[in-house]
């Protein structure tokens, strides 16, 4: 019970912090002081107090976009285990629901973007659609590998099960998996090298350009949803990459928080050392990720 409460609490509170950490890391690499860690929280609060501008072109679909995006991500957050602690909701096949929840959110985000009738947002959603459907199989290969390793068909079962001994046995497969999933993590959250959240040239954006027209509370919701998505997918990734666990519940929570922050730092590092890819290259990288994951699957099920 307490674990569930902590779980929900973390899911509600922690996500923007990751963005803050990433920002800070990048600033440090660039030799700047950078914004405080809590900057994302300030932004969201400020946005919540602002008024809203609606495009006359838009309909209710436009308004529904952010809401559904947040709702789906929130539910997804309840399906994913944090650290050694199983998720509040867990049942056979929940991993499929997990995958499809994001699809729902994406559907509405894209629809909302296209509702504005802006060619730029259309561009963005077209890219989002293509890339995400290329990223889909990778996630499934990962799920296959994990459930084969753990023998469990629930996210909690398969993720919590990963530990050093498993690593020792199937390091090759898991390494490939980590590679693949990291690419997917970056792609799904529209980080460099796929997308640059804070560039200023709309032509090159994917996610940010889709939400150009959202303002005020709606935009706050989008910001928060994005952070939450990063958090949720990050949690998934952390299980693979940093499968530490101590027997102690509280320590595990701490470990989890630390590893999430580590992840944020890593992402920050990647973003500061890499440049954004040309859009033509993006599908190739995603397919590469799929191939990595597929190999790992074949390694475990042969």
């Amino acid at each position, binding site marked *: 019970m307490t674990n569930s409460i902590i779980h929900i609490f973390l899911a509600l509170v922690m996500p923007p912090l990751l963005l803050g950490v990433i920002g800070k890391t990048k600033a440090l690499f660039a030799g700047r002081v950078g914004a405080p860690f809590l900057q994302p929280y300030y932004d969201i609060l400020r946005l919540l107090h602002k008024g809203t501008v609606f495009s006359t072109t838009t309909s209710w679909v436009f308004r529904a976009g952010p809401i559904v995006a947040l709702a789906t991500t929130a539910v997804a957050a309840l399906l994913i285990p944090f650290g050694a602690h199983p998720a509040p909701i867990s049942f056979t096949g929940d991993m499929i629901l997990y995958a499809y929840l994001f699809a*729902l959110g994406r559907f509405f985000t894209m629809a909302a973007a296209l509702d504005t009738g802006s060619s730029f947002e259309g561009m963005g*959603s077209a890219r989002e659609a293509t890339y995400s459907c290329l990223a889909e199989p990778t996630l499934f290969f990962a799920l296959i590998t994990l459930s084969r390793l753990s023998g469990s068909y629930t996210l909690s079962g398969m993720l919590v099960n990963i530990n050093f001994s498993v690593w020792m046995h199937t390091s090759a497969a898991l390494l490939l998996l980590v590679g693949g999933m990291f690419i997917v993590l970056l792609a799904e959250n529209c980080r460099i090298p796929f997308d640059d959240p804070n560039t200023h040239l709309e032509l090159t954006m994917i996610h940010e350009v889709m939400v150009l027209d959202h303002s005020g509370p709606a935009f706050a919701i989008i910001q928060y949803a994005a952070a939450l998505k990063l958090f949720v997918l990050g949690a998934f990734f952390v299980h693979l990459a940093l499968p530490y666990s101590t027997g102690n519940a509280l320590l595990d929570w701490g470990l989890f928080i630390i590893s999430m922050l580590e992840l944020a730092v890593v992402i920050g590092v990647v973003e500061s050392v890499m440049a954004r890819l040309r859009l033509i290259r993006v599908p190739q990288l995603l397919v590469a990720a799929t191939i990595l994951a597929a190999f790992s699957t074949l390694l475990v099920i042969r």
Partner: protein
Amino acid sequence: MQSALQGAVDPALVALFAALVIGCAGIPGLFIQKPGPGQILSAAATILAALAGVPAALMLIFSRTATTYVLQWGLPFGPCELVIDPLSAFFLLPVFLVSAAGSLFALGYWPAAEHRTTERGLTFFYGLLASSMAILLMARNGVFFIMVWEIMALSAYFLLMTEHEREDVRRAGIVYLIATHIGTAALFVSFSLLAAQTGSFLLPAAGSLSALTPLASVVALMAFIGFGAKAGIMPFHIWLPSAHANAPSHVSALMSGVMLKMGLYGIFRTLTYFHDPPLLWGAVLTVCGIASALLGIIFAVAQRDLKRLLACSSIENIGIITTGLGIALLGVSSHTTVLVYLGLAGALLHILNHSFFKPLLFLGSGVIIHSSGTREMNLMGGLGKGMPRVALLFLVGSVAICGIPPLNGFVSEFLLYLGFFSQLKANNLTYLVLLAPVLALVGGLAMVAFTKLFSSVFLGTPRSSAAAHPHEAGVTMLLPMAFFALLCLVIGVVPQLALRLVSPVITAFYPQAMSATVSTEYGTILGRLSLAGVLLVSAVVVVTLLWRWRLGKGLISFTSTWGCGYQRGTARMQYGGTAFSELAVSVFDGIMRQRIKRPALHGLFPKRSHCSDVPTETLLDKVISPLFSLAGVSFAFLRRLQHGQMHMYMMYIFVTLFILMLWAH
């Protein structure tokens, strides 16, 4: 309650009667001179019949018994049995629901007053098609089956020919007719060989035949070709897109929602004869299924014609269902009950689901075409403001067909996923799990296709004058759509009910797969799923409230869309459907190509020009048509034998005489 009603009337008789009523519904209209009454009459009759037929079918499913009648007929093909077992009853549900909804829809969509010349035939053949499908499900005599089958195919052809003054309609019609006829020929062989095995044209009982004889595999193969051609499984799908695109929309709904399923019914029925199907059969089904799913949806993504897109997505869904049947068959061959259960449950449930959201979408497309006068998505846009209700219902359909929670499409795909995963722990059929990523890809592409469809039709601003003045559909058109949307939602949120609907069918044929533990286990899982669905909905509500509350605080202002600094944005600059899908299609270049003709621009101020794109029909253009022209050429060469030279004709006779003489002695 059921038992009481069953005591009162035999549900099987009710279903049969309902089918006949639907078949005759169109006849009065043929003789009523005044346009209108006939149509209304037929609609009323059809709906009443459906109201009687659906509960009857439900009872028959749950009664888990088969009722047999023997039809007295004057044809020399043995007794003609009509049997309704749970399988038939299950397939009867969509027949009744869709036909009734469609005939109601027709009142607004194809009013007799506007279509005096075509309405009569349309109404008549519509009823004929529906009832022939219903009777097909009851037919247990091979010859009778083929007769009803062919009547179904022909009435579908005539429905398709409603607007035969249009060239593309005629072409679609001929392709369809040839395809279905070849399929029927395959069925000739299949049923004849069955008769050769059993000694009568009565369809064999479940599990009564062995699949290990060479004859059996021919039977199965021919049945697969014949029924697959109707269901539109690759590579027999060539007729499907143009046919479904060119028929009137409520007809497309019936064809796509129900007629395709008749092919699947046939395949299912044929498989039940054999108690020991070899693994190969299941493998073939699975591979063809998943291939259809993937290729079908890739085609769909590339389409620019609203209804073609829907038709191609039918190929995809049929593929998904076939995959389910395939893994179930693999389960039967390898005695893996859980696989049988999940495969069948997924397949059957998807059959049901597809016959809800596909008609919904086709009817919606009917409304769209009705108000915009075009099927070209690139010319539409912004219809959502004129017809918000239609937009909402269409959105429900789109989300459902993408297999996204919390709607019904997800439930069936969920079961299939579980099926794929179920062999992961076991050591045989482990590779089945590799289907999961493919299905995931299919899901992703489906989302591309349907975001493209929904947004380029309903969202943004109108791209042409045709779409400029949309008007909301009348109640007769909205009601059926709303009905289907509701069904999608219900099955999506309480999938356990749907599972209870399919389990009797599974029990009827594979009782070993239907152990109490299995059913309860997956019942609970689906229960959790519905909980998650409820949670999702409530989450949406919560966030909405929160947003509204904040929205109320700040001031709200309206302005034009932010053009990223460019202030002269026009409607034509929006991302059209083609533009939206081009990136995705380019990834699958070679399988599917959008042939885009770009104008060559010269000088600083190029003249006005235009760019066009055509999605290619790979199989039809690259294989079938060349084959036909080749045959034409060679035949033309052979036709020289009829050259009009008398003495050569005499020579023919002489030579024949000579040869026969030699043969005789």
